[in-house]
C-alpha cells in the first residue's frame, strides 16, 4: 500500500504545552480515523497536515510532498473542513460552493458546482439562502465545497459533532462513498462508535501521543473477554472476585471485565446480595472501542480504578 500521508516524529508545542508529541503515522488510500478525547491534539495534527500550522519538530507529507517546504503544492491536493462551520449565510448554497470552485480554480466551475450539489443531495435547496439550512445540510454543503475540486486527500475535523443521528449517518455514508471513488479521508472524531463502524484504520490519541494504530477489529481483540455492566444501589466494595477485573464506575453503574461473562455475572450477583445491596440491572456485552481506549490509556497510568464519569465526559459518550 502506498502512503498518502506520512508523519515522522511530528511534534507541535504551544509554549510549554506539547499538543502533539512525536507522532508517527502512515496513512494509505483509506478512511483513517484519529480518535481521542477533547484536547488530545486532533485539530493540531490536522492543522499541521493542512499547512496552517508549522510543526515544532518532525516532518509531515501529503502525497509525498513536504508540508513545510511546499505548502502551496500541498494545498492543491487537499481539502479541509474545519471543526467549526463557516458558511456565508447570506449566500445561497450554490453560491457558497461556486465561490470555492472558483478559488480552487477548477476548470468548469459551474458544472462541477452542480455536480457536487447533486452528489450531496442538496439540489432541491441549492438556491435557498444558507440561513434557512439545518445543521446537517450545512455540513453537507461544507463537504460539497471541499469536494468541488476533487481533492486527493480530504481532511475532516469532527464532521459529525452537533448533528442528529440521521444527519450523522448521512455524512458517514458520503464519506464511505468517497473512499470507494479512491479518495483518502483523514477524519478526526471523539465518537468511538462512529469510528468503529466507518474507519478502515484508527489511531488512538491521548494527550498528544498516539497510543495505538490499527483496524477497529484488531483493536478490539486487545481486550479479550466480556464486559459486564452492573447497576447497583448502595456502596459496593469490590473485594477480589477471581478472574474479574474492575474497569470503572459511573454513578451507580459499575463495569467489569471477565473472560466468561456469564459466569462472572453470577459471581457478581452473589457478591452484591451478600453485601446486602440491591442489584438493579446486570448485563453482558462485547467490548467496544471505548473499553479498548480506556484500557490502553489505563495501561500507561497506574492500575487504580479510574473515574469513569470523567472519562465518559471526555469521550463525549452519548447515552
Amino acid at each position, binding site marked *: 500500500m502506498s502512503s498518502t500521508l506520512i508523519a515522522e516524529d511530528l511534534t507541535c508545542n504551544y509554549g510549554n504545552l506539547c499538543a502533539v508529541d512525536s507522532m508517527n503515522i502512515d496513512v494509505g488510500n483509506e478512511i483513517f480515523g484519529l480518535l481521542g478525547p477533547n484536547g488530545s491534539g486532533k485539530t493540531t495534527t490536522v*492543522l499541521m497536515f*493542512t*499547512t*496552517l*500550522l508549522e510543526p515544532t519538530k518532525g516532518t509531515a507529507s501529503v502525497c509525498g510532498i513536504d508540508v513545510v517546504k511546499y505548502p*502551496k503544492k500541498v*494545498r*492543491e491536493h*487537499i*481539502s*479541509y*473542513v*474545519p471543526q*467549526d*462551520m*463557516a458558511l*456565508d449565510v*447570506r*449566500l445561497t448554497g450554490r*453560491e457558497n460552493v461556486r*465561490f*470555492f470552485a*472558483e*478559488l*480552487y*480554480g477548477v476548470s468548469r466551475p459551474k458544472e462541477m458546482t452542480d455536480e457536487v450539489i447533486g452528489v450531496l443531495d442538496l439540489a432541491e435547496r441549492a438556491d435557498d439562502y444558507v440561513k434557512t439550512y439545518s445543521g446537517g445540510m450545512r455540513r453537507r454543503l461544507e463537504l460539497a*465545497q471541499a469536494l468541488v475540486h476533487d481533492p486527493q486527500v480530504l481532511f475532516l475535523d469532527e464532521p459529525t459533532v452537533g448533528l442528529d443521528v440521521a444527519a450523522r449517518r448521512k455524512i458517514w455514508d458520503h464519506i464511505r462513498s468517497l473512499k470507494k471513488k479512491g479518495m483518502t479521508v483523514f477524519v478526526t472524531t471523539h465518537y468511538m462508535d462512529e469510528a468503529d463502524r466507518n474507519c478502515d484504520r484508527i489511531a488512538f490519541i491521548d494527550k498528544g501521543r498516539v497510543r495505538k494504530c490499527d483496524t477497529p477489529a484488531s483493536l478490539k481483540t486487545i481486550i479479550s473477554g466480556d464486559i459486564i455492566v452492573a447497576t447497583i444501589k448502595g456502596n459496593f466494595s469490590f473485594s477480589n472476585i477471581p478472574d474479574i477485573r474492575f474497569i470503572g464506575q459511573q454513578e451507580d453503574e459499575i463495569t467489569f471485565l471477565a473472560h466468561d461473562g456469564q459466569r462472572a455475572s453470577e459471581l457478581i450477583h452473589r457478591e452484591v446480595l451478600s453485601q446486602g445491596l440491591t442489584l438493579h440491572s446486570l448485563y453482558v456485552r462485547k467490548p467496544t472501542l471505548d473499553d479498548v481506549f480506556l484500557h490502553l490509556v489505563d495501561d500507561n497510568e497506574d492500575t487504580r480504578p479510574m473515574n469513569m464519569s470523567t472519562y465518559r465526559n471526555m469521550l463525549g459518550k452519548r447515552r
Partner: protein
Amino acid sequence: MNAIIIYCVRDLIRWFRGKWGFISALVAPAAWLIFVGLALPVTFTDNYLAFVTPGILVMTTLSASMQGGALIIMDKILGFYNKFMALPPSRESILFGKILVTTIRGIIQSTIILVLAFLLGVPIYSPLQIIGVYLILILFGCLLSSVTTTLAISIGEHDSYAAVTAMITMPLFFTSSAMMPYSSMPEWLRIPAHINPLSIAIDSIRDVTAGLIPGQSILILVILTIFVVSINVKLFRRVKL
C-alpha cells in the same frame, strides 16, 4: 479568475444582501453633505456646499475604510480564515481582496455624494476633473483601507477595533481642512490640519477642481500607500489562527 477579485465579489454580494448595512452606508454620507453643506452659517464663501464637498468625499472614504477593516476581523472570528488559508491561492490575496472591496465600497458611496452635490447646486466638474477626483479617492481609499486592515489585524478583536475607530474618526475629521480653509482656522489648528493625512487628500481634490495638478500630494499618497501595504502584508503573514 483572480482570487483577489473572487474574494472581493463575495464581500460585495454580502454587503448588498445585508440590506441595512448597505442602505445606511448610502444614506449616512448624504446626510452629512446636506446638514454640513447647507446648514452651517459661513461667511468666507457664497457656495459652502462646493467648498465642503471634497471634505465630505474624503470623510466618506474614511468611514468606509473603518467599516471595511472590520470585515477581516469578522472573517477570522467566524472561522472563514481557517478555510481560506487551506486553499491554493496565496494568502495575501485574502488581504488584497479586503483592501479592494473596501476601496470599492468607498467609491460607491463617494459617487452618491458627488451626484447629490451636483444636484444641490455644486458646479459640475469637467470630465477630466472627475477622473482626477476619482484617482485621488481610489488612491486614498487604498491607503486608508490598508491602514484600517492593519489596525484590525493587530488589534485582532472586534469590540476593541470598533472603539479605536470611533475614537479616531471624529478628531481626524475636525482637525482637517474639510470644514474651513486654513486662513479661517484658529492659529493652533493650522499645524495639525496641515499634517493631517485627510487634508492632503482634501486639498488635492480642491486643487483638481480648481484646475491644478497636485503632483506632490499624489506622490506622498502613493509612497504612503506602498509603505502601509508592505507593513500590512508582513503583519498578515505572521497572524495566528
